[in-house]
């Protein structure tokens, strides 16, 4: 093969990624990157299509399988409580641990609430109040500012196998701390 022809072939094949190796003196083998570019284009289009941009960061743990459903609304920013087979976390911090969705007897009070969870919610709620009070606008009393910024929303990120009994305990505890707007997090079904 003539050197000029080899050079042309290499140039058609691509640029800096081309790896040429000399065989038996003058022969050059060029990597065809055109097909690679095709694959990359398809992959990029697919990724761009499936890429979802959301301002809300919902970190679903590995040990949690969310129920699938259609017709849900867009996620909102709110306090997050996670219920898994092994425990409950609030804003990522572990609150309670148990086995197979079964809290220990002492962990549930007579009114169906979970004192540990109520305590953790109270702490978070207090933080929320302090933030609200700190952002008091001119002419607004701290009490009104707290009331206006009071967020009754709670994102419930629960495993699909969670029994309603456990969910009721969690929601009862939340309602004890004035959380009344429960947002159940689900995975959008494909069909």
């Amino acid at each position: 093969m003539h050197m000029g022809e080899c050079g042309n072939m290499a140039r058609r094949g691509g640029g800096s990624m081309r790896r040429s190796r000399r065989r038996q003196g003058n022969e050059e083998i060029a990597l065809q990157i055109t097909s690679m570019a095709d694959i990359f284009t398809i992959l990029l289009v697919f990724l761009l299509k499936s890429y979802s941009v959301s301002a809300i960061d919902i970190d679903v743990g590995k040990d949690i399988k969310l129920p699938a459903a259609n017709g849900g609304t867009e996620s909102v920013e709110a306090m997050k409580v996670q219920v898994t087979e092994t425990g409950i976390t609030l804003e990522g911090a572990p609150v309670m641990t148990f086995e197979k969705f079964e809290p220990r007897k002492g962990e549930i009070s007579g009114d169906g609430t979970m004192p540990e969870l109520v305590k953790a919610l109270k702490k978070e709620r207090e933080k929320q109040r302090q933030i609200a009070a700190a952002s008091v606008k001119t002419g607004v009393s701290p009490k009104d500012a707290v009331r206006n910024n009071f967020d009754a929303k709670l994102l419930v990120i629960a495993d699909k196998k969670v029994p309603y009994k456990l969910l009721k305990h969690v929601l009862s505890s939340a309602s004890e701390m004035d959380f009344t707007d429960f947002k159940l997090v689900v995975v959008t079904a494909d069909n």
Partner: protein
Amino acid sequence: MSRSRGGSLDFELNLAPIIDCFTVLITFMLASASFLSISIFDAGFTPAEAQGDPTPPPITVTLDLKKNGSLQIVTHGKYESKNTFQNADEAAEALRQLKEKYPGFESVTITADQEVEYESIVKAMEKARKNNLSMVLGGF
């Protein structure tokens, strides 16, 4: 892109920088993409003190999920009934008919047996939501 100097036009697209860009972009997107689309189901709980609605709905409806998979719709108010359905589709159809008959009826209270899984509750809510009814979790 280069052009030959001697008369004929010989275009050669230099794919190398494009491939470089694609590689970086694909790596970034693969690392950051979340392939699960997450959405929210509203399940407001109405506290006792907030229930002083001046115009009460014509009927109050409770959807009760049973351990055996059946669903029971209990209505109170202008229309008193208690019907059991074997699946969520049948229950959703019954809710649709109630909605047609009583346009003022707008929310369903969902209750369930202790052992009923969260997934079943979400499924029931999904079906009921198709009738433009809001859901309220009850039983606690």
